[in-house]
């Protein structure tokens, strides 16, 4: 036993519990949520899980507000693995608010009777039984065969709530990670639940499962690239902490090929998550195949998390070597905007169209993230907040337009919708105009903030290209508006479901924030510009 006596006692690193309380609350409650799933009888799970999830999000928000209210400086804690600085606090707040809206959409059981997610085990057996058919969806009759009485609404499986909380915890860790290994673990913690959530749809099981397989295989492929990038940068710098990587960029004796190769692979992994440019191929398929509430969560929160991570990597670790990588990222941003705007024009499915719009928006966001200035950070953060809420509300609206087979996402089904439901058409019009960036919506303010930052950092040609791309992209948003208002509705057109309280609340939240950020953006811009990264 002598070797134990000789061992130096491990010094436990100090932990600032106040700063990381929101993170601990979300991850801790996610574990409790798993226990609820395991031990409560089935009929009690839904109310308990919904209440638990909402309480968690509000509680984490309160903890965040209490900490941010003291006006703290940026700190690093947990042995420098996690940095809690003003951008982190802003992104945490954004993620929690967006997750609250997404959970409201996920929890809704009025739009799709029983909820949009896989029903309990006996009904799944019925679905699997007819799954041999190659059709895109499984008929309603086959689905309902599994229940005792036809009037009894099937209960949904509630695993989706712990998945949401774990994914959210991963996203919050991802934006706060101060070294590459923490970032990689967070990337997996946020991705793995998302892969599973994609496959949980109650209707159109084949599409949903196909989306899950595609997302999983491509996502795992991309994280392998991220990891190899991590290894090469570790070889170059001898460390994986962002501030120390920044120091070693000027001093390391190793070959620059390691640094540039590592950075390139790292960026590929990050761009994949943010669905930027040529790494976007999974986006339209997964957005279309996943259950719409999950798509809303993915589109809003994953984008925020991915760009939060990209900002920190580019600004803290590689800010000083920006002349090496900026040319490549120019090409990526242009490709992303062009792909999103041009291919988006040809789409016939609303969810795919919004997916390509998100690819175009990723290009705009990348322009902001490339501007290594304080305006670049605050502009990108504000853009993420604005874009997240608009997208959330868009998917909320999409989930309401339904016919006998579930959601009617084909664009032709949306013709003349304004005559059936003027309110829904007006809300959708407002949201699409916000995505296009029309003044008096948050989209305009956000684009302005990002483009102004890029101009100031000497990227005028890129801003011109971005303006052209937003003009092209505006065309396909306006096409939907024209279709809704100036076409005759089809005889057997889809009906607009009257949403329950949860979906109404989520859509109202998204629309209100889109409007408020468009009219009085000062407050949020102030929060976004409260300070830079630590380190």
């Amino acid at each position, binding site marked *: 036993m002598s070797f134990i006596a000789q061992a130096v006692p491990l010094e436990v690193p100090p932990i600032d519990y106040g700063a990381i309380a929101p993170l601990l609350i979300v991850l801790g409650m996610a574990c409790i949520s798993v226990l609820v799933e395991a031990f409560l009888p089935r009929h009690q799970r839904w109310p308990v899980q919904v209440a638990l999830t909402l309480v968690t999000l509000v509680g984490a928000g309160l903890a965040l507000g209490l900490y941010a209210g003291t006006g703290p400086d940026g700190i690093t804690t947990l042995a420098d693995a996690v940095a809690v600085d003003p951008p982190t606090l802003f992104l945490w707040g954004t993620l929690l608010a967006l997750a609250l809206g997404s959970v409201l959409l996920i929890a809704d059981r009025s739009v799709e009777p029983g909820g949009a997610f896989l029903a309990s085990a006996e009904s799944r057996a019925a679905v699997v039984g007819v799954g041999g058919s190659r059709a895109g969806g499984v008929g309603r009759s086959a689905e309902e065969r599994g229940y005792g009485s036809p009037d009894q609404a099937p209960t949904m499986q509630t695993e989706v709530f712990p998945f949401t909380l774990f994914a959210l915890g991963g996203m919050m860790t991802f934006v706060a990670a101060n070294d590459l290994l923490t970032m990689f673990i967070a990337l997996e913690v946020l991705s793995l639940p998302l892969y599973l959530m994609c496959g949980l749809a109650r209707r159109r099981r084949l599409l949903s499962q196909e989306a899950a*397989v595609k997302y999983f295989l491509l996502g795992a492929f991309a994280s392998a690239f991220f*990891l190899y990038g991590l290894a090469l940068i570790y070889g170059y710098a001898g460390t994986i902490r962002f501030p120390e990587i920044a120091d070693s960029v000027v001093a390391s004796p190793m070959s620059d090929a390691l640094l540039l190769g590592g950075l390139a692979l790292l960026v590929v992994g990050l761009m994949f998550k943010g669905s930027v440019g040529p790494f976007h191929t999974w986006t339209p398929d997964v957005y279309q195949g996943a259950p719409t509430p999950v798509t809303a969560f993915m589109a809003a929160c994953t984008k925020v998390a991915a760009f939060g991570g990209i900002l920190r990597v580019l600004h803290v670790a590689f800010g000083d070597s920006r002349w090496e990588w900026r040319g490549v990222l120019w090409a990526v941003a242009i490709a992303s905007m062009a792909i999103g705007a041009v291919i988006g024009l040809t789409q016939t499915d609303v969810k795919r169209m919004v997916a390509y719009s998100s690819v175009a928006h990723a290009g705009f966001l990348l322009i902001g993230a490339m501007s290594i200035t304080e305006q670049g950070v605050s502009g990108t953060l504000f853009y993420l907040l604005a874009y997240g809420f608009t997208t959330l509300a868009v998917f909320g609206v999409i989930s309401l337009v339904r016919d006998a087979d579930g959601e009617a996402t084909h664009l032709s089904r949306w013709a003349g919708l304004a005559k059936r439901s003027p309110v829904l058409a007006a809300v959708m019009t407002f949201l699409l105009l916000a995505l296009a960036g029309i003044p008096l919506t948050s989209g305009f303010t956000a684009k302005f903030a990002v483009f102004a930052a890029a101009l100031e950092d000497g990227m005028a040609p890129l801003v011109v290209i971005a303006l052209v791309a937003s003009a092209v992209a505006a065309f396909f948003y306006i096409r939907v508006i024209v279709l809704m208002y100036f076409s005759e509705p089809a005889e057997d057109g889809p009906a607009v479901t009257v949403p329950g309280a949860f979906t109404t609340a989520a859509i109202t939240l998204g629309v209100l924030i889109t409007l408020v950020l468009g009219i009085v953006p000062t407050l949020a811009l102030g929060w976004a510009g409260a300070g830079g990264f630590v380190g």
Partner: protein
Amino acid sequence: MTPTYYLLLSALLFSIGAVGVLVRRNAIVVFMCIELMLNAVNLTLVTFARINGQLDGQVMAFFVMVVAAAEVVVGLAIIMSIFRTRRTASVDDANLLKY
């Protein structure tokens, strides 16, 4: 034996894995190729730990192993569920999502 050889070997393994992901058709084999890529990274990390004279890289390799195990759990579950409905694990047959 210089450590550089190990770096070359790991780069080769990583490339074999990446090419395998792109050309193979069976979802399980694609997934195995991804695992090969992750293990190539482990070799790189351990070699760099040796070159830099640190333990950090070896510790990171353990983290990667744990993450790879978690990924197997989730991945095989997803592939199983699609295999049950389609009776095939070929990624070419999953072609409903396109425009």
